[in-house]
């Protein structure tokens, strides 16, 4: 049985100037133990979608099933109980500023009726888990962003959840802290078997830890599948746009490729692990006696496997072009035509 199943979900907001369809006919199936990414540009509806998963937002239509239990059919009290098994962390951490770290972590336990002393003891253990053992008496205002998110994660784990929803949890953090938080999430997924849903606009986050991903655009899921598969063969423009912008925030190259060759077609190729050993491009040039223009090259870690990505500008001659594409395909590379501008 799936940990989370979403059936024909729609959400419409009524506003003064009419209806806003935030989500349209969403269908999703997230298996237990998965790390599932939901990626999209801001305003795509992903934050609304994640809030529908624990019914912080009530869907206008459709169903959300958590381990087979339909949330829409629950009473307010039953829903609260179900929610305590679905934890959530946020972009801005949302810690209680007037309570110290320990009491923040103990909070969900106390809310659900655990004795204060017992709750604090458990909180202390969780604080060790997230590597902040010495900070129990600090207040959130004294912590860095990464430390605050660690406290939030400890708090999310306190109720012993099956599912952890992360709403842009690393968007307010620098790249290094992001990496350490993602590592912690991965550890939680592996050690505790908690299903993790990650909402983000950063492809790098999905690439780093997600196994499966859904791409949301204008309130709809436009593409869904294994991260590796989508990375190698993106089908929709939305997926391609996210892939090409990947990481560009950190290393924007001011140098544009000089167009020495008059190319007519651009292709994107993806190397898998085995093809990375052979100098494929060099061999291809030697064999076909025609140079190609490398417009962009990058290697990325996709789900633990090193993947190379290149964008090539092919020469004018159609025969050679086709021969090149055939050559690359024969070598087991994913080849795909790039329509829009690489820049």
């Amino acid at each position, binding site marked *: 049985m799936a940990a989370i199943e979403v059936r024909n979900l729609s959400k419409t907001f009524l506003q003064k100037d009419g209806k806003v369809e935030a989500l349209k006919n969403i269908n999703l199936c997230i298996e237990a133990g998965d790390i599932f990414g939901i990626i999209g540009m801001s305003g795509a509806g992903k934050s609304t979608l994640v809030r529908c998963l624990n019914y912080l937002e009530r869907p206008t239509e459709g169903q959300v099933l958590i381990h087979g239990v339909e949330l829409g059919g629950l009473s307010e009290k039953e829903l609260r109980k179900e929610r*305590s098994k679905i934890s959530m962390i946020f972009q801005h951490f949302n810690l209680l500023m007037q309570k110290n770290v320990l009491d923040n972590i103990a909070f969900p336990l106390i809310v659900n009726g655990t004795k204060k002393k017992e709750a604090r003891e458990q909180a202390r253990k969780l604080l060790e888990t997230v590597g902040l053992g010495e900070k129990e008496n600090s207040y959130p205002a004294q912590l860095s962003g990464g430390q605050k998110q660690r406290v939030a994660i400890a708090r999310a784990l306190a109720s012993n959840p099956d599912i952890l929803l992360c709403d842009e949890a690393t968007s307010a953090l620098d790249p290094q802290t992001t990496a350490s938080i993602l590592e912690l999430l991965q550890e939680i997924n592996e050690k505790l078997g908690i299903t993790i849903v990650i909402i983000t606009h950063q492809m790098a986050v999905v690439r780093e830890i997600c196994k499966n991903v859904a791409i949301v655009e204008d309130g709809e899921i436009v593409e869904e599948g294994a991260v590796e598969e989508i990375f190698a063969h993106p089908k929709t423009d939305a997926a391609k746009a996210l892939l090409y912008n990947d990481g560009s925030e950190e290393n924007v190259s001011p140098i544009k490729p000089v167009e020495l060759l008059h190319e007519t077609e651009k292709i994107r190729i993806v190397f898998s692990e085995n093809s990375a050993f052979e100098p494929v491009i060099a061999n291809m040039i030697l064999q076909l006696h025609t140079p190609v223009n490398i417009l962009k090259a990058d290697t990325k870690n996709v789900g633990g496997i090193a993947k190379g990505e290149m964008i090539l500008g092919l020469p004018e001659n159609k025969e050679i072009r086709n021969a090149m594409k055939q050559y690359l395909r024969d070598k087991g590379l994913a080849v795909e035509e790039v329509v829009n501008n690489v820049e």
Partner: protein
Amino acid sequence: MWSKEVTQMIITGIGETLYMSIFATLFAYIIGIPMGIILTMTDKNGISPKPAVYSILDFIVNLIRSIPFLIGLMVLIPVTRFLVGKSYGPTAAIVPLVFCAAPFVARLVETSLKEVDAGVVEAAKSMGASNFSIITRVLLVEARTSLVAGATTAFGTIFGYASMAGVVGAGGLGDIAIRYGYYRYQADIMLVCLILLILLVQIFQATGMKITKVLDKRAH
């Protein structure tokens, strides 16, 4: 002119003023906190939006707040007589003081509670917290410094009203200042009363701010 009796009278006056102000503030809060909580909860962005309840309560609060205190004091005489048994003296003054201050306190509480970050409330909801838990463990705790600052303001205002109640024989420093200083032209007594009133307000304001500072864990 400045006899032992006058000193005794002023000491009693201080006691009466404090008695009226403290108890009026206390009762105003007993009524005002629930009203403020209901206003916060039932507002359209609250945890339990109920537009009708909000509009009615909002209207009542505005209505009472627009009644000048001295008029409220007179109009309420029958109610005061019913509750306290007489319409003069410090205890009697507490009734109109509470009536006029409670809506003011409700507004202060509402403002403080609405300052609490909506994200924190959302986080509590996502943990399965009930509305009662959200009020007692999130809103009131997170807003505590703002609430104490509000209480300091409320006390200052009620203290001023309590002095004003002296006009109708409520007792206290305000009463003495009017009877001796104003009607009998004993400027020295009026001056002493004034200085004492200023001093008391200063002490309470400083104490309130000090408590706020100690309670606040946000600034470092």
